[in-house]
């Protein structure tokens, strides 16, 4: 088993002289649920995108499972997946066709069995024959999560995993993410504006502010440091 899941060294991203991520160095152990927090424009999405190879860093290095992303990209990508409400699947084909396509890209063995199992778990079996474009945003979120779990990712990146979901479905998804992590000993990195959600799911928090790390450590340490009992308090204090 690798020692670290994500390790970055002085990671920076600069667009046209504007620094979006600045000198971020983190070292996350293998296994666990980690939260990335920050206000709008803090650099969360850019940071996540760099971890998946979607954005090339301006400076610094990324190591996933102790391997350099630059030199072992495709080997690493087999074991990563991502879900975001801001990214879609082709709208004109069915949910099943979309899922089969991604299962093939990840070389999933026994594709249909895997899809049916995940569909049952996520209560989307009835949607499999529906055209993806006709789904509600809540249904799309669950289908996208299903897509993100097809390859049993060792590293799962979730961007607002419960956006547009009602309270009970959100709770179900959170429980599912937790049980998935336990069962597979995966590393899950979550960004969310739902502070309560991060509090419930994550033991370790990375706080980004204007592209820089403001805090990186255990959730309890963050509370201690800020003399607060919730992330909401910390954010509100910050605003004042």
């Amino acid at each position, binding site marked *: 088993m690798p020692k670290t899941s994500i390790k970055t060294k002085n990671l920076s991203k600069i667009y046209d002289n504007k620094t979006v991520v600045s000198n971020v160095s983190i070292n996350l152990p293998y296994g666990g649920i980690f939260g990335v927090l920050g206000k709008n424009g803090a650099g969360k999405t850019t940071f996540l995108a760099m971890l998946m190879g979607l954005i090339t860093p301006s400076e610094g290095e990324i190591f996933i499972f102790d391997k350099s992303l630059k030199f072992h990209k495709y080997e690493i990508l087999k074991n990563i997946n991502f879900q975001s409400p801001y990214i879609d699947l082709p709208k004109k084909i069915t949910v099943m066709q979309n899922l*089969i396509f991604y299962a*093939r890209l990840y070389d999933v063995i026994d594709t249909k069995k895997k899809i049916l199992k995940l569909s049952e778990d996520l209560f989307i079996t009835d949607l499999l024959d529906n055209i993806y474009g006709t789904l509600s945003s809540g249904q799309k979120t669950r289908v996208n999560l299903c897509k993100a779990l097809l390859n049993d990712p060792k590293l799962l990146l979730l961007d607002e995993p419960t956006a547009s979901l009602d309270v009970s479905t959100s709770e179900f998804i959170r429980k599912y993410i937790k049980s998935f992590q336990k069962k597979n000993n995966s590393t899950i990195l979550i960004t969310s504006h739902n502070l309560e959600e991060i509090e419930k799911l994550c033991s370790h928090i990375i706080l980004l502010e204007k592209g820089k790390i403001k805090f990186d450590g255990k959730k309890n340490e963050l509370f201690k440091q800020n003399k607060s009992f919730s992330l909401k308090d910390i954010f509100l204090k910050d605003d004042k």
Partner: protein
Amino acid sequence: MINRILALLIRYKNISFGSFPRLLSIFYWPTVQILFWGFFTNFFMSNGSFGIWSTLNIILSAVVLWDVLFRGQLGLTMSFFEELWSRNLPNLFITPLRDIEMVYGLILISFLRTLIGITPAVFFANYFFDFHLFELGLYLIFLFLNLIIFGWSIGFIVSGLVLRYGQAFEELAWAIIFIILPFSCVYYPLGSLPNIVQDIALFLPTVHIFETMRLILIENKIVLHNVFIIIFLNLFYLILSILFFLKMIFIARKKGLLFNQGE
């Protein structure tokens, strides 16, 4: 690798041919064109304006072959645009799919879409006008392949530009073919163009392809020199366009553009 390319091909097939209206949109235009030109030429021939028997064959061959180029380019760009329109690019690029595998997938679906688009047109032309595209014999395969390859070259350039500079460039996907149409000498010989334009037009493989087509249909001969020029120009443009497309993906990663595309 083959598994991933096949996955792409099947997915593009599902998107392209998944419903009757979408399938119809692929083949209605070549069919309408061939019928239009066929009836138009029939009228001229019956009025004695053109006496030679091969006029119809020359025009209809040009129509069908020009559409091979158009379908080839459109099949490639539209398949790529589907990824942009559905905001699906990030999902694709975080899989183990390599950029070059995407290139192969786009080429294969374009080939399939072109074949399906052209077949009804050839059938109708044969039925209504006694037109036999297959009179071109084995040369037909050569002309078909070279036209579709040039279509891919244009398709990769347009796709790369849209990826890099945004959807304002999408219009190019429809317009670019009609911009090069007058210089490609599809319906008239190279000599019909002004001298200065001729010099520029010679850099288009389409000019040599349609000159070759006319030579085969009228004189039943082929000039080897032309064949080499067609192959050389096409390979040159195809390699250049694929490199350009790959470079645009590289720049898109650098500028964070893969996240910001969509309807």
